[in-house]
């Protein structure tokens, strides 16, 4: 009876520890997504400041004057992460994009944002570790930013990994949606957008339905 009572106490403590560790592994104080709170083509993209894998804050405003391509990333998603040989990184499609993008616009910037804390039910610290491993395995050199409380995913309406957003040098959202048509030879939509922005022409298409793993923000 006494031992049973102790087991109950241990269970309660486990629950408390669980809650405690979750609270400890909370949202970094520097993270924020600021107005506007929704991403809309032709409108200023939501500003944000997020931590990279080294714990350094990175803001969208750091890249003012440059075209920024953002890819929503999840290390365990077979379309974007390292768990499948068919992801956009495993197949080299991101490397091809980066090479072609730099030829078109050497100043263009590629960022990855990971909002998987709620989906994977892990702390931002654990997600950072997993992303570092995935980056090493996949040879990702672009910054990976941790969206600890998923507020940036909410602000952008990021639905999948990979869901891609292209923002011009004025901070205006010019494209959002699919990374490509899922083939190495096919159309890469963010590259098209970067080319159009560089040429000063209209971005077409501005939206192609995104595909991939869902992003959990609620």
């Amino acid at each position: 009876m006494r031992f049973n009572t102790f087991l109950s106490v241990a269970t309660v403590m486990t629950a408390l520890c669980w809650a405690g560790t979750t609270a400890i592994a909370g949202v970094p104080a520097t993270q924020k997504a600021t107005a506007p709170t929704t991403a809309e083509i032709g409108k200023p993209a939501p500003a944000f400041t997020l931590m990279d894998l080294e714990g350094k804050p990175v803001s969208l405003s750091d890249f003012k004057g440059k075209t920024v391509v953002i890819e929503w990333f999840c290390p365990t998603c077979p379309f974007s992460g390292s768990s499948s040989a068919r992801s956009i990184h495993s197949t080299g499609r991101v490397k091809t994009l980066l090479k072609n993008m730099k030829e078109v616009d050497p100043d263009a910037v590629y960022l990855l944002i990971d909002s998987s804390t709620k989906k994977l039910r892990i702390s931002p610290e654990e997600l950072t570790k997993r992303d570092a491993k995935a980056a090493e395995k996949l040879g990702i050199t672009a910054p990976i930013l941790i969206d600890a409380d998923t507020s940036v995913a909410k602000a952008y309406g990021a639905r999948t990994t990979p869901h891609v957003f292209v923002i011009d040098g004025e901070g205006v959202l010019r494209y959002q949606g699919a990374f490509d048509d899922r083939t190495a030879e096919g159309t890469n939509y963010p590259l098209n957008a970067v080319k159009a922005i560089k040429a000063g022409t209209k971005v077409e298409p501005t939206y192609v339905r995104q595909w991939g793993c869902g992003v959990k923000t609620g």
Partner: protein
Amino acid sequence: MPPDPFRQFRSVPPWLLRMLCGWAVAVGMLASSAPADDPPGSGNDLVTVRVVSDVQALTPGGRFTLGVQYTIKPGWHLYWRNAGASGMPPTVDVLAPDGFEVGKPVFPRPMIFGSGADTTYGYEDTLLLMIPMTCPAQLSSSEIRFELTLDWVVCKVACLIGEATKTLHLPVAPAGREGVIDPRGARLIEQWEKRVPRSIPAGDRPGGFSARLTDRNHLVLKGVAGAATSALYIPGGTPGVSPTVPGPISGVLANGTFIFDIPMSIVPEDALGEPLRVNGLVLLGTYERPRAIELNLPINDAKPVIEESGG
């Protein structure tokens, strides 16, 4: 004197208390860092596939249906042709000898997962995709080999990719003989055909159904609801054309009819070179007792008002 609530603990040695507390802390920390669920290694662990046909033998010029049956582990799901906010539909590539016509996979009415901007459409437990086939006018060999390359994404919280290649050999019926129905395959395909939305092709005038796109880009749908207690519209995901409101849209039921008034976003530059068209399903009844209407209306750039009406 009130009873001591901690009386039972007072006889426990402090070292045991500390050990158990340490154990509890360790368990707590492990639990907080563990993933929600460790998914299986591949989508093949979660979905089994088999290929069926509604005929046992082929005849020259004859039509038949191939069915790809997916059996899905509980809790996981596959996707409709418009997956919705995330996911991806299964793909089926049929390799058939020259002269065979291979149709596009026909998707039955989907289920609705989630809500609002996170809504996805798909199938739990089981799915049969149907591929309409037509034989050439002449069949020279006595047996025909079909190779199906299958690819799917199966999701719960995590998503996994599955793939398989299946072959099916069907004999050719002797000259002058009818093709023989495969009773089991035909029965299965017939059951799933009942779940396929009834198509409303342009120009058709089925009783009581009308679809109109107003000059303010509102899609107005009217039709007979019968005994249905709800009516939902879900978009087919055609590029460049989508409702401005995400997720399924509820229609109004009144006097045995349904009415939808859906504001649409029409962006020609997002059409990926395809003709602009409104495509979607009106869902009546339930998933188990389905009734669904497929809407497929072209949008005329020059004259953005289209109208189809039935009696």
